[in-house]
């Protein structure tokens, strides 16, 4: 991580190689006094607008609406502004400044939605309802004779091939439909670690099902 250098040589050198609008934003944030305050107010206004659009775009996931949804957006915008003012000296000009800034508000909306689910769970994180699995993957009930053995083999592989943590993550996300960002909070982890755990679980389960002839192997062959 580069050293923080608000308003110093590093900031001026970065601003010199940016597109004009991004350079102006960096200068405003590095500034002091009323110009900076006005810039921060303008940035906050933009972040609130993006956050409100984003929570409405994702509203169907949330089962909340109205003032509660707006409140979530305002919190996400406020947290994003803090992160941006804290990190703007790290901005390297690989994108427009506004795209970099919007990323913070989008991530904050995701995190707050994850937290909302954690506080208001619709299903227990550790419940295990294997009867949901056919519906989860779109297996038709009238074709049960064809897929019953496959899902039994999957259940067996989950029990026998996965580590306890991989099994817990698989059950929460796949069987219980717990959002990954909610599991991050429940397990005091981060998105990358949970994704990697699920990635490894998927790889093991597919290999087991391919070995038993239920799915084609990596070369498209059935055993």
């Amino acid at each position, binding site marked *: 991580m580069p050293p923080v250098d608000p308003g110093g040589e590093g900031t001026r050198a970065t601003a010199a190689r940016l597109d004009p609008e991004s350079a102006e934003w960096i200068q405003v944030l590095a500034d002091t006094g009323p110009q900076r305050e006005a810039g921060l107010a303008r940035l906050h206004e933009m972040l609130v607008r993006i956050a409100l659009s984003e929570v409405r775009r994702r509203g169907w996931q949330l089962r909340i609406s109205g003032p509660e949804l707006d409140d979530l957006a305002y919190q996400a915008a406020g947290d994003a502004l803090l992160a941006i003012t804290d990190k703007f000296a790290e901005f390297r000009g690989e994108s427009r400044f506004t795209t970099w800034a919007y*990323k913070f508000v989008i991530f904050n909306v995701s995190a707050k939605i994850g937290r909302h689910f954690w506080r208001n769970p619709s299903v227990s994180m550790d419940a295990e309802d294997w009867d949901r699995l056919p519906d989860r993957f779109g297996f038709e009930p009238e074709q049960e004779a064809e897929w019953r053995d496959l899902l039994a083999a999957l259940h067996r592989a989950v029990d026998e091939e996965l580590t306890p943590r991989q099994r817990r993550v698989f059950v929460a996300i796949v069987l219980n439909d717990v959002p990954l960002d909610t599991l991050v909070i429940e397990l005091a982890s981060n998105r*990358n670690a949970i*994704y990697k755990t699920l*990635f490894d679980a998927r790889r093991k389960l597919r290999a087991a099902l391919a070995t038993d002839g239920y799915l084609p192997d990596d070369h498209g062959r059935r055993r």
Partner: protein
Amino acid sequence: MNGWSELDRFLRTDPSDVGCAEAMEMLHVYADLTAAGAPAEQRYPGIAAHLRACGPCSEDFEGLLAALRDQSG
């Protein structure tokens, strides 16, 4: 898509998938390229592979693209 192919698609992993940390780190660059019509997938195939497999990162990417569209609209 039937259950077999949906399950197979879900379980299939791509070794080039960079994971959430790297995708999140570069998401603004990837989104700017995509919004500009540049070949982001070719330039960052590992991020493209990740976005195809990771629901949360893909959702964030869609949100960022929507924000860019709002900005230019």
